[in-house]
């Protein structure tokens, strides 16, 4: 029997192939490097979608495979964005300030420059002092490190406290929501040092780069595709071997895994913190394409969306998460972007901008009830895979256990 990684998970090769082709296709159609069919803003939408796919893969690892329904991973995504945003904003502002001051007769002192940058950045929240957390904002290396370190440490701390006291199921989900809410409320305050509800803006401008947005947007698109490819490969590697066996075991019956001698809490912690770091990276690629990151992005609802994407795509299979993220976010940008024509019923006009969320909610309920395998179920239809006959019983006693209807042979 062939035990090589790709032979065991052929879907990984298919996925990487599709991703590569799509990247090539978009490049050829782009304004900067191709025939210019796709607008720069659409390239950005596509690049952002790839980042959402990456965090969806992380969500599938933590929920679909380890059974931890985290409703807080978007907070880690946002934090990743903030960490890279601090450097982008600082450097960009420094450039502008230094060039405007260089005309002065007397060369400005470093203190004057620093004050001027502080004034520029924190003027909106009525301050000019650099808060302590901006200490390393001038160092790209350190801020890049923080992109993974801050989500990792926060998730590690949270997970250590929660898993150690054996909080599971709904209670854990509620705790993650509480953490997310607390974080976003904190960031909304001007005193948080991250410009309160203004957030960090102008992130699309890369300091020291002359190239226009059409080129920069392609760089980010490529980087996002690369990150998604690597993230997918990593996730597939993690779930393919014995580690995957153990975390799926934890999802379906964690007590049984304990009796086999595995320290369930350590495994949960590794998965929770590891996926938080992936989320941080995804966020750090997303927000420079969005141009702005603010506390509203971290709001609890965002993390719930994430779970909805994965559910609609089909949890417990990585490509399902990706399909869900692409499908929902592209459809969402169609409906909320004002492109969808309103429907006039005579007595009432359905405005999709308002009704889209309702529709998403309804489809979530319908999918959970009638098509628990989500979009991934279509792939099974095509591959003609059956599910084990368990006479209606789920595959394990735990709250996060795979339901019989979700499983495939």
């Amino acid at each position, binding site marked *: 029997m062939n035990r090589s990684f790709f032979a065991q998970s052929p879907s990984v090769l298919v996925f990487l192939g599709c991703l590569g082709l799509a990247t090539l296709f978009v490049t050829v159609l782009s304004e900067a490097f191709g025939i210019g069919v796709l607008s720069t803003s659409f390239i950005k939408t596509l690049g952002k979608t790839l980042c959402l796919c990456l965090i969806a893969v992380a969500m599938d690892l933590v929920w679909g495979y380890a059974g931890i329904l985290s409703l807080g991973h978007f907070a880690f995504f946002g934090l990743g964005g903030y960490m890279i945003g601090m450097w982008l904003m600082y450097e960009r502002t420094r450039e502008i300030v230094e060039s405007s001051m260089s005309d002065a007769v007397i060369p400005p002192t470093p203190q004057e420059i620093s004050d001027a940058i502080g004034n520029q950045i924190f003027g909106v929240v009525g301050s000019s002092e650099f808060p302590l957390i901006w200490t390393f904002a001038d160092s790209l290396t350190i801020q890049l490190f923080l992109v993974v370190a801050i989500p990792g440490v926060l998730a590690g701390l949270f997970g250590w406290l929660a898993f150690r006291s054996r909080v599971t199921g709904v209670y854990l989900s509620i705790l993650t929501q509480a953490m997310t809410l607390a974080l976003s409320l904190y960031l909304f305050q001007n005193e948080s040092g991250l410009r309160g509800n203004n957030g960090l803006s102008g992130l699309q401008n890369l300091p020291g780069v002359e190239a226009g947005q059409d080129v920069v947007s392609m760089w980010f698109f490529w980087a996002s595709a690369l990150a998604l490819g690597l993230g997918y490969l990593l996730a597939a590697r*993690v779930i393919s071997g014995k580690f995957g066996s153990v975390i799926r075991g934890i999802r379906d019956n964690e007590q049984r895994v304990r009796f*086999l001698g595995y320290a369930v809490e350590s495994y949960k912690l*590794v998965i929770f913190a590891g996926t938080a770091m992936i989320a941080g990276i995804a966020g750090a690629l997303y927000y420079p394409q969005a141009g702005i990151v603010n506390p509203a992005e971290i709001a609890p609802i965002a993390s719930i969306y994430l779970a909805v994407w994965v559910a609609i795509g089909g949890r417990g299979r990585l490509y399902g998460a990706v399909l869900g993220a692409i499908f929902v976010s592209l459809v969402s940008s169609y409906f909320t972007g004002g492109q969808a024509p309103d429907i006039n019923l005579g007595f009432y006009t359905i405005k999709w901008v308002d009704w889209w969320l309702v529709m998403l909610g309804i489809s979530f309920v319908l999918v959970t009830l009638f098509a628990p395998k989500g979009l991934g179920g279509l792939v099974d239809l095509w591959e003609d895979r059956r599910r084990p006959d368990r006479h209606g019983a789920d595959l394990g006693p735990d709250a996060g256990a795979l339901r019989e209807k979700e499983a495939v042979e």
Partner: protein
Amino acid sequence: MTTLLEVSGVSVSFDGFRAINNLSFQIGPAELRAIIGPNGAGKTTFMDIITGKTRPDEGRVIWGDLSRSLLSMSEAQIAQAGVGRKFQKPTVFEDQSVEENLLMALSNPRGPLAVLFYKPAKADLARVAELADEIGLRAQLFRKAGELSHGQKQWLEIGMLLAQDPKLLLVDEPAAGMTPEEREHTTQLLVEAAKTRAVVVVEHDMEFIRRLGCRVTVLHEGSVLAEGSLDHVTSNQDVIDVYLGR
């Protein structure tokens, strides 16, 4: 005779109900022991206490040559120390293949890093194949455990138990739902296993117990009612009154 496990004066209550009442129990390193008793006697709860699932209100549970207390250890640590358990209701990982189930149970390092970089060695695969032969699931190796019949799941769980290579096997009603031939096979496996390790079998079926041919402990209302050979305990008047006479 040295003891592998010594349980002394253990009690546990659930909401005021004493499920285990001042129970004491000993087993040697290579001994087969059967535990019988009416429904609700506390047999499963007794296993829960040894494996760390339930913490007793009082009493001691002492393990091994080093006389460590199991009470301060987590379930995973107890399992790593060498206590393996088969549940009353077969619990295997239904979403995973028979092979994956066995590989997971195989006694290898259990830490996340070691597991992440684990590649099944030739010896491991050979052991899995050997176990699969022993439990009659060789042909099912790559099928999902969820598709197996009830009896096959029982077998798989027994196989996982053997794969763990524990010093003490706790087996809760292994023969439930098995055909006479399968019971015979189970008996052989357990007797064989008890040559090199301690095995505790909970069973209701007297015929099964008789074939094991070992010492029997009778539990009733959470404490030991009688202990000795099967003939000895079945002739005990108390045992006849509470268990056999019903």
